[in-house]
């Protein structure tokens, strides 16, 4: 693995994380929130494989990445299912409008 490829992956991870967190802070739509979470997870998957390669234990990195993909797909499914229910009860997916519990 040469220097610039390593850098590209690192930049990629950082970029995905940045987009994900920025999105989470800004977005008002519940589906977009779930999407941003997925972007973050992709960054993490990349990071795990990267870490595995860099430390010499690529097998471990890949297996953890695969497990994460599965686990977080489940999270995404649950999140979207909840979002569907929210749409049914609240009539909207607008985050500020579903914030009734305060204080």
């Amino acid at each position, binding site marked *: 693995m040469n220097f610039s490829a390593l850098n590209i992956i690192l930049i990629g991870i950082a970029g995905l994380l940045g987009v994900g967190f920025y999105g989470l802070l800004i977005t008002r739509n519940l589906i977009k929130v779930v999407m941003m979470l997925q972007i973050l997870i992709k960054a993490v998957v990349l990071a795990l494989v990267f870490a595995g390669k860099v430390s010499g234990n690529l097998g471990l990195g890949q297996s953890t990445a695969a497990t994460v993909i599965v686990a977080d797909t489940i999270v995404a499914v649950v*999140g979207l299912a909840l*979002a569907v229910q*929210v749409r049914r009860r609240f009539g909207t997916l607008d985050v500020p409008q579903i914030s009734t519990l305060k204080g």
Partner: protein
Amino acid sequence: MTLLTFIGMIVIPLVSSPLVYLSGRLGTHETTLHRRSYLVRGLALLAILLAWIPFVLSVQIFLAGGIQEFNIEAIWLRVDGISLLAAAMVLTLGTLVILFSGPYMAGEVGEEKYYAMLLAMIGLMIGLACAGDLFNLWVWFEGMAISSYLLVAFYREQAASLEAGMKYLVQSAIGSVMVLMGVALVLANAGTLDLIQIREAMSGSEVNRLALLGAGALFVIGFGVKVAIVPLHTWLPDAHSQAPSGISAMLSGVVIEVGLIAMLRALSVLPGFSFSWGILFMAFGVLNILYGNLLALRQTVVKRMLAYSSLSHIGYILLGLGVALYSDMELGAQGAFFHLFNHMLMKGLAFLSVGALIYGLFLQNDSHASLKINDLAGTAQKYPMVALALSISVLALGGLPPLAGFMSKWQIFVAGFQTQNIWIIALMIFMALNSVLSLAYYAPLVNMMYRKTPSAQVLAGKSLSFAITLPLLMMMLVVIVLGFMPQLMDWITVPAAQTLMTMFGN
């Protein structure tokens, strides 16, 4: 092989989870909802009672000095003092909640899913406590989180419930992501994820301090969302107050605590920082204690008040752990772990008592209203046992003798004062004063319940079944007994404290 018995306490709940779900879907439309409910409840109870057998055997093996490990290739499960403490807590509260939920959840839509998820969550939590490597830890953690999302949002007809579940999911997922980033950092630097081997791999001098600090911060914040450290706690008041009462008890009583254990496991692999973790824990402890107490003062919904009070109790535990890590004082860890166990009992008892009242006052009258402080008026007239249970739990939480909470807080105080460090002593006094402050919101509940004129809700309330009051009775007795004989829990808190000190020791 006897050394593998501990697998049983993880596997039995996990395997019975889908079985319980299926049994609930069995039968045609002719099979009454009623009968199916009893089948599901019965199976769930049976499953959890079976899981006690491997637990008891494990404890015996552990106390006799046997090592219990299990591995598939590089994935390890190990039993140590902390695992047993967590398993004890989860099984105790889990059994009582399953028993309690029998009448509470009877006839609800999706009842079999409730028990299935609850059993899964129990199995996953015990698995977490036995996890032997970092990634394994994360997987169990994520599993526990997912099952808890579904349980929090159980009442999908209630908008507030969904809202709480959604916010909990998003925030918890962010936490998980951060944990994974930390795992990646550790992997990049150590080449392995096994909790024991990482230490060896990183003891060399070429360790990248920046990366490890980053990993540490990510672990603290990532797991911290689950542990409800202020300012990451914002999901907690909503989730704990909107979930069904049995789940509120589980969340406040074990889920947060097991999250804390996961955090401790993850942090222990990062070498040479126990000093700073100690300071960090103490700082967050202070924040949690103060914030939790102040906000609980202003609540009118009882479950929300109890949720905020959980924040301050986590603060007490963090303070105890912080003192232990900073000053190498095992007694602090022992006190913290004892408080961990006691909080499970006391907060569990509190939530279940409130749940009993919600059951009698609202659920039986087909209402999903939340219990307000004013609704508590005159409860003792109609539900003396529940009023007594709630009073005892709340006074115990306030740290009054002769109840359990006093004894565990005392141990933390002793540890803090023994450090002879003036700042830590000041923190201990701060903690004691906050404990007094908490009485300002706990005591009015007791006064309200023993009024002579019942509220309208109490007058309209229906009777409670035995399955609801039995867990309350049992927990009350234990809280009182531990208040007089705290040494009864030494067999589990001392090994846990020792494990912690070795985990973090250099």
